[in-house]
Each structure stands twice: as structure tokens, then as C-alpha cells.
């Protein structure tokens, strides 16, 4: 298993994580806590993959350069 570093952005904030991390991890890192994760879990916000132009979710695997918008 490799954990090569990768970088994504969450609402414009750069987050450095690693191969194998998920959207949930990016949101935890970006908020330094569970606030964004809870927003998504409760259905009050959705995760939009700006790079792909499509919706994803907390379990989605991250890829380098991905731009996530929580809206």
C-alpha cells in the first residue's frame, strides 16, 4: 500500500493528504474538525467535484488536483 502525497482543495482551501484518503478526510482536514462532514451527513450540504463537474460523496476516493466544493 502506498500513501503518495496528494493535494486537493476544499472550497478553495488547499489540503495536503495522501493516496487512499477520501473526501471525508479532506473535509476533516479543511475544517480541522467534523463540521463539514456533519453538514454533508445531515444532507444540508453536498459535495461537488468541480474538476469532474459532478457530485461525489464522503467516501469518494481523492485524486491529486481535485477541487471540491461543499455547497
Amino acid at each position: 500500500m502506498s500513501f503518495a502525497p496528494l493535494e486537493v482543495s476544499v472550497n478553495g482551501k488547499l489540503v495536503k493528504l495522501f493516496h487512499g484518503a477520501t473526501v471525508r478526510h479532506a473535509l476533516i482536514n479543511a475544517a480541522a474538525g467534523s463540521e463539514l462532514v456533519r453538514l454533508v451527513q445531515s444532507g444540508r450540504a453536498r459535495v461537488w467535484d468541480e474538476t469532474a463537474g459532478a457530485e461525489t460523496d464522503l467516501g469518494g476516493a481523492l485524486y491529486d488536483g481535485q477541487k471540491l466544493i461543499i455547497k
Partner: protein
Amino acid sequence: MKSKRNLLALLVVFTLLFAVGSGAWAAALSAATGTAVEMGNGVITPAVWSAAREYDWYTAFSTRTERLTGQPVTLHSDFTVKANAARLTVSNEGVRELDVAINGQRLNLNTFFHQGIGVSSFDISDLIKYGPNTIDIEARGKPGGAATVAVEAPALTARIISINDIHGKIDPLPKAAAYVRAAKAAGGNVYFVDAGDDFSGNPVSDLNKGRPVVEVLNAMGTDLLAVGNHNFDHGPEATQARRAESIFSWLSANIAVADPTATPIQPFEPYKIFTTDLGQKIAFIGLTETPPSTGAKNIVGLRFTDPLAAAEERINELREQVNLVVLVSHNGLDFDERMAQAITGADLIVGGHSHTYLSAPAVVNGIPIIQAGSDARYLSDLVVRQAGAVTVTGGAAGGAFTVATAGMTAEDPGARAIVDDWNARMAPILDARLGYTPAPLNRDDRYAMDVSVGNLITDAMRDYMDAQIALTNNGGIRASIPAGDITMRQVYTVLPFGNFVMKFNLTGDQIRQIIEYSWNRDNRHQVDLQTSGLTYTVYTRPDGSIDHLDLKVNGQPIDPGAIYSVAVADYIGTGGGGYPLPGMATPVDLSSDVDAIIVGEYVKKIGTLNYAATAGRIRIKTAPIPVAVNKLNFYNSSSLLADLNGALVPLTGQATVLVSAEPTAYQYERSSTAPKNFAKVNAGTPIPLAALQQVGGGQVVGLGAILVANGYRPSYQNPQWFTNLLDRLTGLFGTGISSTGTSSLAASGASGAAVLFDEGHGQYYNAARLSSIASFLGDRGYNVGFTGPNTPLTAARLEGVKALVITTPGSVGAYTGEELAVLQSFVTGGGSVILASQTDYNNNSNPVELNNIAAAIGAAIRFNSDEVRDSSPNIDGTAVYSPLTDEFNPGYPDLLKVR
């Protein structure tokens, strides 16, 4: 889907024209598109293929016209079919007899002629073969008649319904099953494809290692599955077992079994080929994320290769054999898009892994890519039609490409029964006894100490990840467990968030930083991390901040430079709570089970737990209030001398005395055996205990005792004085460095530590016995290192070191000439050396060796073979070997400051 309108594409058209009035017949092979190819000696070999699709035979045609002489027309031709189905159509306008043989087998056309039908079509699928074929035609008739014989191959039409990243969510599957069943019942070539990651995410599935998912997929009529990273999550045995239970194929073209003795997992099929009802072939190639995100222990013995290269290899292998290539890729949309850009020969990518919901295919390089979110919330539904080019349309109602399971009404009763059965089984599973605890497992005092439930959780994490240390944050512990039987339901109540566990390799210093952060987090000044393998004591100041930390791993002081494996909840491992782990290191392993499962399995393994309310893993103590240095304790100290032309003389002017014994002190020759270099100081002269000498660009300090070994009396200010001394030697004095700040001194691990303690020459005072001062210095911004035992001093070892501390070498601790030269160079170059001796009690001192070092580096300071005693003052009025002193050199007030 099998209908006349789909039988449009003509492969070869043979037209027999019976020329009016000429008595001659003309035979022609006419081209529907006008694309001419070489006919040669009757062999129709398509010479023009679509550049992107070599196997696209639909565009191959040939023309030839030949005038005949009134004799029966015969025509022989070879033709190539890249399909497994074909029809022969005859259109007749007055031909009396027509014989057609395919590959030497004659068709019976009698009925056709007897009924006088103008046009008729015959299924010749059984006569043709994939590849080269022959046709022989013989026609007889009157001039004016004509016949057209056409070999036709139908367009390929298939409906591909897919799902991906189910993650154990079986509840929506009965509806999905009804949808798939209905599609298949409607006829045609319908394939239900699963793009991987079927497990992990639902206790019903997780606690049964994925069995419920496989059972439902079987009931759904699943045709194949591309192996996803989370298909390995329940371990190799479970992976192989689930696969064996599947009545569909698990595909991966980029996984090989590298060591069959290390895994029960059998090799995966790289692809699977289906044949349509019209005989066309569709290849589905499975591709798996590489490297796969699952626990390392799950994939031992397997080798994962580049999925793109694997796809190219298989496409090259298959594209002459099949009509359609579908890549079922568990690699995420980003990868799939890059793959589509790079690859040729694929017709469609059915993806997974990134949980992307694509309401319509993304088309890259002409290749449609579809993915259907996750958790069985959607199915994608595509109708793929290949007649020359490939077109994809939506197969769901209204031409939609996806359909939400929530919006479906019908349920497949078989799948529903399976789901209901597993859900019903869950109640007893959740309430089954995993183990027993005679005492409650409380979380109540978790912000002040270690608590039993925290100890259980971290013990389980450490065991699961095979780590030396485990840490988890208090915020993730949501409940206590009462005394009595422990059930899985209770464990889920304690750990409801589904956190995974990560493993890092961290230095002792990084672990110290994490504990320090945990205490200071948001200025809470309270315990935030429960621990296993590591014990820690937080010494606090009056304002609650950390004065210093005492960390131990399995009872031994933590080594700042050593590497420890640490399991942490992924919440803090990915920066939750602001924890600095992501910036410190990358993980080395990730659990494939969530924390609740890990703890549940651990309880089951242990059986009866034995946890006290607290185990002393975390303690909070109030640090002594720092005061200016006003008294030092020279426990077990020798006195200092000087060397004068080879003779030991009292130290008076050769170096600056920093600290002297009180006037009441006296020298005592405690040992009567060698080594002997005892010398009396002059009568009435204070006995030197600490001295400083500038040597070249550096400084040398002599101490009669180390002063700061573990167990020093905190009521005296030995650590503060020692730190102040290092501040002076390293140039930090006056820089205003904060007690919790980071040293400005360069450091690159132990070998580059700013302050290095030599324990490589048999020193009694090693890392274990100097851990307190190491921690004290670390809290004040120093990078502290130890050489390790039996380690020579080299220039490389001293790279970046500002101050080197050498305590009494052991009996095997002689410094080599090479080492002494290194030390001399070190001091000359600006480094500082502290030489610390000790009492000659029991011959434990080694002044000869220390004095050799002092001489080698050019210092006049020497060490006596004695013990400095004082009847008053000393630490308790009786311990004469533990004198106190406040005889400080007033020229060095910086050594007495508080910081």
C-alpha cells in the same frame, strides 16, 4: 432487441445481373458505400478499416463487375467476418435457380424459389465462422433476370446496467434487483456489471465479512464484478470465500498472485467475454486501483500492476476477437478520463472508486465513461449500439442514463428476502455477547486522565495495527460501557463515527509534539488523547500550560530520535482537531475495518477484560514553579583541577570557575584504588565544581558531576542552570526563545541534534538515565539526541551539533585517537563540549579518560579523583556526598536566570 431494423449493416453484397437481351450475365459485387477495396482473385480482404477500430468490419466493401457469356454464373469469393452472426438475404427478380454455399455447405433455397418470394433472409450464423469465410454462388436464368445475394451482419446492441461502490449498503438492492431483472426479462443483451468496492460501510455486511452483499448480487443476476480495493477489506480468506460464493466472475486484469503460498486468493480472470443473441462478442475487462487502498495485510502475496498498461495489453489481445470492449474500472473518474485519453480500442468505461455521480456519460477521446455514485443509490443504464461507430443512449425511462433506486417501486422478492433475512439476523448479532467486563468501562474522567474505555479502544487499535503506540482523541469516545457482558451494539454506541485507523512511523520527538498539541489544543489544557503503549505525564504551570512532558514507551523513556509505529484514529491522522500529523509524516498503513469492528473483534479475542478505572497511563502533575537559580546540588561530585605542564595543580587561573563548593566543603579521597590522580586544592581556596574555558572557536566546560541525571531534586535548580549553560554555549542566550518554541538550531535527527549526549563509550548516564533532562530541554526548544551505545564519535555524527555532553566513560570506553582528533576539530570549529565527571566512590569515576579528552581538545581543565563533601549544607543534613552550593561566579548572571 433482435429486430429487422438492426440488421442493417451489409458486409458483402453479391449482385448477379442478368443482362437484358444480351444472353450474357453480369455479376457484380456492389458496394453500398462506394468504398472500394481490392478484390484480387476473388478474395475480399477489407483493406480499409476505421483508424480507431481495426475490427470494425462494417465499413469494408468491395465492388467488381464482370460480363458473362450466357453460361451459368458462378462466383467464388472469400470474405472475412468479425462477428459470430450473419444473415444471407436474397433478392430475386427472375433467376430460376440459385445455389449458394457458405464454406462449402449449401443452403437450401428451394422453398424460397418455389414460393416465388422476391426477398428472403436466412440465418447463416451456423455456417459462418469468425474470421475468413468463403461463398460460392451459381445462378441460372433467362436474360433479363437479376438477383442480389447479400451477406449481412447485424448491428450490435447491448444494454449495460451498472452499479459501483455499494459499500455494504444492501437495503436499496431489492429495488435495483427488480430493475435489472425486468430489463433482462425484456430480452436482448442485458448485462449487469458491478464496478467494485462492495464491502465496508454497513455493519450488516461488515460483521459478516461481506456475505450479505454477495448473496444479493447473486440474486440480482449480476454478470461480473471488477475487483475494487475495498473488496479485500475483510482479509484474504474472506475475499476468496466471497468470490467462491459468487455465481459471477470477479475480474481484474492488473492483479497477479505473486506468491500463492502467501495468500488463499486465487488468480482473478482478467476479462470475461459474453456472446450476444446474434453472436457478437463483448469483452469486459476488470481494472483495479493500484496501489489499492486497503490494509496491507489483506493483499499479501498479490502484485498490482499499472491498470492502464494492463488495459492496453488486454485490448491488444482481444480486439481482433470481439466486437465491443468495455473497461470496468475501479480507479476513479480522474484516472478513467486519463485512461480514455491515452488508450485506443476501448468502447466504454464503467467506473467506480471516486463515488462520482454522472447523470450522463463523460466522453473523453470518444469513449463514454459512466459512474453511478455510491451506496446503491443509483444504477447507470446504457444502451450501447455498434454499427460502425459506437453510440450510447440512456436505457432508463425517458432515455435517462441513470436511475435512482429510491425512486423505484418494484422490489425483487428474492433479493428482498435475503436482505430481510440478514437484517433480521443483525439484532442477535449486535446483541450477542462479545466478552465480559467485571468493571464499568467509563469515559467520564477522560479529560483528566486515562480511562478504561479509552484504554480498551487504544489497546485494540494497537493490536490490530501491530503498532507500538496507539492514540485516539476523546471526542471520538461517545459512551461508556457498563459492567457485564459487552455487545457489538454497545461498542457501536461508544464508537459511532466509523473512523478508520491509520498507522504512522513517528520519531519520539514528533510524538512529544503531538502530546503537547493535544494538551494545548484550543487552549483547553486538558487531556485529549487516550493512549496505549505510551504513558505520559504532563507537568503543568500555574496557568495550565505545559512546563514539560515525561513520555515513556513500554516503561522506557521515549527516545526523541528513535522511530515508533503509532496507530491513530483517522480523524486526527488526517488533521482533524488541527492535529499536525498530516504535515509530519505520511501513513504507512490504513485499517480496512472501522474502529467499532476493531474494538469488537478485540473484545471477542480477549474475552474477559481487566481494566481498572484508570491505569496511570496519563498523569497530570504540577511542575515546580520556576525560580531563579539560587542553589545547586552537586550530588556525587568530584572537584576540578588544572594541568600545568603535565602536573595536576589547583584550578585557579587556567579556566573560569563558574561554581564552587561552599567554604565548609572538603575533598575526600573515597576510593583507595586506581585510577589515582588525587590532588588537594590550596588551603582556603574554594573547591571548583564547574569551570568554563574558551578553546579555539569553541568552549569547554568541566562539571564535577552531571547534575541532571534522572532523580535530581526539583527543589534545586540543576536543570535550569544546565539549560542556561547550554544557552550560553550554543548562543541561544538572549534570543528570547519561548519555553514551547522551536529551537533555531538546525537538527536532522539524532545525528544532527543540537545537543548530543555521548553514550557510546560505556557511559552509565545513558538515554534512559538522562530522559528527564532531555525532555526538559526539548520543552525549551532544544533538539536533544543520544549517540546510542557502542557508537564512535565521527565528524558526520557531530554534523549540526552545537554542544556535546560527555559523562564518565565506562571501563570499555576509551576514545580512539581518531575520535580525539574529531573532538579537537569540533571544538576548534566552534563546538562546545561539556565534560562531566563524578565521585570516585567505588571507582566509578574515570578521571584519566576524561582528562585525556580534555588534553586532546586543548583544555586545561582536569578532574580529580575525589568526592566533594559538605556536612552543611547538604540535601538533608546527613548526606555529605550531596552538597549544596550557591557559590556562583557573579560574572555569569545568565546562568541563574529563569526562562
